[in-house]
């Protein structure tokens, strides 16, 4: 008999599986069509046809081989043009951009390229679930900083300063934020930059939701004076072009860091999927209008859901980014996990307990509004019924 427990990596064994597994097992058992899921964080749109068509066309032409490690040159050039056009960011396609398998790979590359064993990585929470485990796999130490609802889940300079130690290597900046919908405006970033300038701390700015802000344009940490040299920008096609399944992301940063990241990418991945890269070229060239029309639709739904939650007298700050609402459910007296489990079992609506996104998320639930108005409307009706019964 093999003793796998003894054989397996301690580091991997110590990773916790996602805390909401049980919860999705319930969802899976329900009859399809019976439950409304506001749980999955992905666009409900299908990728615009002209982008899909470009992928199909590349297959017809027989473009089925590996690309260069960093990705197709034409795609990297388009990414550089796009970043300049949309966000005023300047990166050179030759040595400052890698095309990755989704934003997730880019995060992994950045952490692995920078973190030495014992280095600390500051991670604001609640946030997307991967930063801590990726840090742990690189033998780094995640240092979680709880952001506060009264600050609209922004990271403040005081919170950052309090978390910094001589071992701090990296600050993860996950804005616009999943799961809270919080954003960082220029002044908020300036305050953080004041703390960081003159230190050796690098910033990993996960800007995958950069195109989904409402009422103001996204500002990147790399837009600020003296910050580009200490910032790694992660972005991708999943959220802005509804391309989650294509697994297309990219990372930009200072050439000395990017060249080290490229080595990891080279050995672990080779190159991002070729078909997806051709589709991505089309997205960057002709997709600005798609972004805008989807963003408008999300904004309609955002207001619609916020209005509904307010009518039910649930406390919810107005999220200005991504496609999530993060209402506080403390007044129900339930923990966020109890709330979500009962809401799913009794009313068949799936939302995610805030605690799944790290400490500070407890007492909140994440509701994704990248869903049809009919779904949102019905989910709100059921929520009303549920709250009345509690």
């Amino acid at each position, binding site marked *: 008999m093999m003793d796998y427990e003894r054989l397996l990596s301690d580091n991997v064994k110590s990773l916790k599986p996602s805390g909401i597994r049980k919860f999705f097992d319930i969802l899976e058992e329900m009859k399809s069509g019976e439950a409304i899921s506001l749980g999955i964080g992905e666009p409900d749109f299908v990728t615009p046809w002209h982008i899909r068509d470009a992928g199909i066309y590349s297959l017809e032409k027989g473009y089925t081989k590996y690309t260069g490690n960093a990705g197709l040159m034409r795609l990297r050039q388009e990414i550089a043009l796009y970043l300049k056009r949309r966000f005023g960011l300047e990166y050179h396609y030759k040595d400052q951009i890698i095309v990755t398998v989704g934003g997730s790979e880019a995060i992994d590359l950045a952490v692995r390229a920078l973190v030495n064993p014992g280095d600390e990585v500051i991670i604001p929470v609640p946030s997307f679930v991967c930063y801590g485990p990726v840090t742990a796999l690189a033998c780094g130490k995640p240092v979680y900083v709880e952001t506060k609802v009264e600050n609209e889940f922004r990271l403040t300079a005081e919170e950052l300063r309090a978390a910094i130690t001589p071992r701090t290597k990296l600050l993860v900046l996950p804005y616009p934020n999943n799961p809270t919908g919080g954003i960082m405006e220029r002044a908020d970033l300036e305050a953080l930059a004041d703390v960081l300038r003159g230190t050796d701390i690098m910033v990993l700015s996960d800007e995958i939701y950069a195109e989904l802000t409402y009422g103001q344009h996204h500002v990147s940490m790399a837009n600020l004076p003296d910050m580009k040299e200490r910032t790694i920008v992660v972005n991708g096609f999943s959220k802005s072009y509804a391309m989650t399944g294509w697994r297309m992301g990219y990372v930009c940063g200072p050439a000395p860091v990017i060249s080290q990241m490229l080595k990891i990418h080279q050995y672990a991945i080779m190159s991002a999927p070729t078909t997806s890269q051709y589709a991505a070229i089309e997205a960057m060239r002709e997709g600005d209008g798609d972004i805008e029309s989807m963003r408008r639709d999300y904004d309609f739904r955002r207001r619609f859901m916020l209005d509904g939650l307010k009518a039910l007298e649930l406390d919810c700050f107005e999220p200005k980014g991504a496609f999530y609402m993060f209402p506080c459910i403390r007044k129900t007296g339930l923990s966020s996990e109890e709330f979500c489990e009962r809401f799913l079992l009794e009313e068949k609506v799936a939302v995610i307990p805030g605690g799944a996104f790290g400490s500070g998320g407890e007492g909140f639930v994440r509701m994704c509004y990248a869903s049809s*108005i009919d779904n949102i409307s019905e989910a709100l009706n059921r929520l009303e019924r549920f709250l009345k019964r509690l």
Partner: protein
Amino acid sequence: MYDTNDILRLLEKDGRLTPQQIAAMLAMEPEQVKAFIEKSEADGVILKYTTLIDWDKTTEESVKALIEVKIAPQRGEGFDRIAQRIYQYEEVDSVYLMSGNFDLAVYITAKTIKDVAEFVYARLAPLEGVTATATHFILKKYKEMGCAYVVPSEQEERINFA
């Protein structure tokens, strides 16, 4: 940021939205939305509220056809008078004045092929000013009013958490 045309765009996609819902989506007042909708109805901007039905999935049998109509326009009245005489028929769904090889595109729905034929030879062709017709039966509908008839099947395995 959003204007009243957005009210129309939303209603065009889903006629069942209430003024309250639209107001929430556009950050407007429900009264403002309601007043605008009423005015649009009165002004003929909103013509009617309808439902798109795939009759092929029901027991109802019907035939749709596109009839190209050539016309000798009448002095002083152009194509409008004859178009009006055609669109009054209940079985006519749409009538468009076209550029190109024919003048009017007439879409009709009837119970049987025979009914379509009868419409063409008994009603359309004898009209004064109609010089020729060409009837094309619609074999299959793929997309109408921005809505595809074939709904893509649900992907089998989906990620649970992102």
